[in-house]
């Protein structure tokens, strides 16, 4: 690339120079786009769908809330058996052949679902609630298999639970042990807003890490249903979309496109890529494509595309016309 060492005078030899006010153009561009943005803001505003809370969730869909809470207690939710960085499960660990970055990274945001989401918050609210205190003692004193039996019965009972007008849930009688008290208190705690606070603040007053409440929400069906209504599901190219009628992130079209096609979304794999490791596969593909984009100047073929598809003839048509004119006139400066 000898030309990189050539000075500008030589590089631009034969090229006409014209006056050009760079700062004026900067100013006009800024003012122009500013005006456009102000108009759009005034006329169209911006999206702002209010957030979901554990409180709003437990009020809007108490059965789904209780299904999730009991699932956390039994350790059967997605987060409970997720794997790193939350715990030592493997339910959501993605790998590609021998490459298991997620496992190798280890646990750094420890989440023990039954304890963090249910037992710990409930333990903090036993003041003045002897029933809850004894239910907790009974549950924690029981064997693991007994606990699971109660919880399995409770899940069955939930499927035929009735919803009262005041938002409380009545589960048909069954052998739930202390679980029914624990779940009843979870619902009350959530409806009062206390669960949002307890999951967030743990033992710090000031807190900015919403991992726990968000993971709890993620395990439920409520927030996912709301997202489906807004076409924000991954299967609906949701990564590109915005709530309402606002434009979203059109520039993420290629990232989300892979999620829609086999083998990324199929159970039968190809080259080790399948629905079991879609995220990892897509990230890998996009890293590769980004590397290719970065290295375009050095990749034969790729770097020749602008020459083969001559849009440049439009970009610089004035210059090419001038060069042809000079050549026709027998100008010694012409190439």
């Amino acid at each position, binding site marked *: *690339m000898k*030309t*990189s*060492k*050539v000075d*500008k005078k030589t*590089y631009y*030899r034969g*090229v*006409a*120079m*014209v006056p*050009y006010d*760079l700062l004026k*153009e900067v100013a006009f*561009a*800024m003012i122009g786009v500013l005006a*456009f*943005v102000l108009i759009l*803001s005034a006329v*169209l505003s*911006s*999206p*702002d*769908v209010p957030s979901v809370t554990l409180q709003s969730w437990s009020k809007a869909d108490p059965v789904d809330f209780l299904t999730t809470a009991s699932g956390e207690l039994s350790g059967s939710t997605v987060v409970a058996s*997720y794997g*790193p*960085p939350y715990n030592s499960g493997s339910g*959501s660990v*993605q790998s590609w052949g021998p490459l298991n*970055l*997620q496992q190798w*990274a280890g*646990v*750094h*945001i420890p989440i023990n679902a039954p304890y963090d989401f249910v037992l710990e918050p409930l333990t903090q609210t036993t003041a003045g609630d002897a029933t809850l205190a004894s239910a907790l003692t009974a549950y924690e004193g029981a064997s693991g298999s007994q606990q699971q039996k109660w919880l399995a019965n409770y899940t069955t009972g939930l499927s035929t639970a009735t919803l009262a007008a005041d938002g409380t849930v009545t589960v048909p009688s069954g052998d739930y042990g202390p679980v029914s008290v624990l779940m009843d208190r979870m619902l009350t705690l959530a409806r009062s807003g206390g669960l949002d606070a307890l999951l967030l603040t743990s033992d710090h007053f000031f807190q*900015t*890490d*919403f991992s726990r409440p968000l993971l709890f929400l*993620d395990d439920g069906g409520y927030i996912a249903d*709301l997202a489906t209504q807004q076409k*924000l599901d991954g299967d609906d190219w*949701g990564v590109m979309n915005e709530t309402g009628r606002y434009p979203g992130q059109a*520039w993420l079209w290629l990232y989300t496109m892979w999620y829609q096609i086999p083998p990324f979304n199929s159970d039968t794999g190809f080259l080790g890529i399948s629905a079991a490791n879609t995220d990892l596969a897509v*990230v890998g593909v996009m890293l590769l494509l980004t590397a290719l*984009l970065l290295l*375009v*100047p050095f990749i034969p073929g790729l*770097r020749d595309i*602008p*020459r083969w598809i001559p*849009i*440049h003839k439009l*970009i*610089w048509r*004035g*210059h*090419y016309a001038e*060069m042809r004119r000079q050549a026709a006139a027998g100008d010694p*400066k012409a190439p």
Partner: protein
Amino acid sequence: MSDDAASGAADQATQPLADDETGWTASVRRRVEKTLPISELLPTKQPAYVGSFWVVLSGVVLAFFGSAWWHVSSIGHFFNSIHFWSVQMFFIFMVLHLWGQFWGAGWRDGRAKTWMVGVVIFTVSIGTAFTGYVIQQNFDSQWIAINAKDAINSTGVGGLFNALNFGQMYGLHVMLFPIGVTLLVVLHVIQVRAKGVVRPIDDPMQATP
């Protein structure tokens, strides 16, 4: 200070570097003066073929939005709206700029590094946008964060970069990412000004006058 010494100091400030002046400062000054004299930083003439004006315009618009608009406070929906629409404008012009540079093969004649810095700016901008989306503190933020976490976790980076950690995402979005984008854009503009705009394709630089 005597008059002689005062005028001597004033003379020194306006004189070019003497050949025997050494040191880090002198070396950097020499390098800068050679690569980017003030006449190139703010040229008053441009090659006539800077015809596709959006190449310069889009770069200029990016410089504007990249370092200024994200500062806009979120107090008030109107300011939130300005931020939302200016991000849309930012990406629109950046992608148009990318299209133009690709079809004009702007990496030619020793400008590969300028292209590469541009691609890095693009990817860092996406990161900036992502951290911005998850700190909106609305439904969108929640949904984006809980979905993105799976992709991030799959790469093993989830313990370090936690989309559910508002404090971390906020600090990254408001300070660290914009500093990165700004520095990269400044570098990118300096690269363009140092070398000048690329010549048209199939218009080889003439070796003889």
